[in-house]
């Protein structure tokens, strides 16, 4: 008899703690969700601005985005492309490319490319590379990532868009070749993709969700 009560009591106890804990977390979450989203948008905007300077466009970059799915770019996930226009003239596109072959998994990048195929800037959105080794790809840790701005597919030529160790022009880090190799490869792929699909990506009006979807299906 008391056995059943014991079991029941344990269940209720755990339920109570889970409920209290969860409700605290959930309330905090609900309370701060909007703030967090605002924060994130702000961060995103700041990051976008690092990739393409705000003077060069006048549209709402954050909202003017399409999704494309190309296995080479997004490692299986759809890639968001932010499109910059100046007075409705296409200026540049910013890709959220993914370098799937980082040392510790995928590295998410922001790659800005202008209509001339010149890189306007690159930033790392997230990565899990080793602190102290691979994390030199972060702008805050070294200026390696700045080295891409101004480069294009012709400069250097495609076959030299690699790290030095592989016969390219970009530096690797001492003791960490894998991370930079992954990043360089991802940027090269993005450039190639943009080179091929520039028209489709830029030459269309600001989409709403449905249109973006259609586009993706078209690919």
């Amino acid at each position, binding site marked *: 008899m008391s056995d059943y009560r014991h079991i029941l009591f344990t269940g209720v106890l755990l339920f109570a703690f889970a409920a209290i804990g*969860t409700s605290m*977390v*959930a309330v905090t979450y609900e309370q701060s969700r909007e703030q967090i989203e605002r924060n994130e948008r702000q961060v995103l905007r700041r990051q976008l601005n690092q990739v393409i300077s705000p003077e060069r466009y006048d549209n709402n970059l954050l909202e003017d985005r399409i999704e494309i799915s190309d296995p080479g770019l997004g490692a299986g996930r759809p890639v968001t492309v932010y499109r910059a226009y100046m007075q409705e003239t296409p200026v540049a596109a910013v890709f959220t490319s993914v370098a799937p072959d980082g*040392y*510790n*998994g995928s590295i998410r990048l922001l790659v800005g490319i202008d209509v001339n195929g010149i890189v306007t800037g690159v930033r790392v959105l997230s990565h899990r590379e080793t602190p102290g080794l691979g994390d030199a790809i972060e702008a805050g840790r070294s200026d390696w990532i700045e080295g891409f701005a101004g480069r294009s597919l012709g400069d250097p030529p495609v076959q030299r868009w690699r790290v030095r160790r592989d016969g390219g022009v970009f530096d690797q880090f001492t003791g960490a070749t*894998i991370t930079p190799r992954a990043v360089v490869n991802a940027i090269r792929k993005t450039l190639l993709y943009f080179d091929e699909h520039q028209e489709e990506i830029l030459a269309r009006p600001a989409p709403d969700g449905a249109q973006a979807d259609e586009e993706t299906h078209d690919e």
Partner: protein
Amino acid sequence: MTEYLLILISTVLVNNFVLVKFLGLCPFMGVSRKLETATGMGLATTFVLTLSSICSYLANEYLLAPLGLEYLRTITFILVIAVVVQFTEMVVHKTSPLLYQVLGIFLPLITTNCAVLGVALLNVQEQHGFLESAVYGFGAAVGFSLVLVLFAAIRERVAVADVPTPFQGASIALITAGLMSLAFMGFTGLVK
């Protein structure tokens, strides 16, 4: 098939959870004094890790994702893990008192063995499917157990060495772990 094999090689050797990823270090240091206990701990962890990897996958896939409660992932996973561990603990306590005495302090610690939560979170991060999650969890545990057992055997030997007094105990053990990790760097580049 090769994909599962690669996951295994990667988790066991190249990205060994303990020596390269720095997960599960506390039990690694704590229960490696004797080969037998290390073997026991390895088995226990393998069991718990594989099971909780699967359970967390299920919880994520069928509870959190449908309800849009991803922000409760940590809580849910840790709860799942704690319960799996607690259950295991009770069973071990009943069936093998000696193993319990030895593992007693560390079974609860498996709960907070970073490796267990680490595996659960990494599974989500890497978008592993059911089988992949299981293999990933299993591989991580095998990697953990492997180095744990080797480490324990070395420690037994080092325990009777003429180690300078300030270095005896934890200090030389950590240095040994460091040299093991040094050796494991030889696997860099094998996968990925």
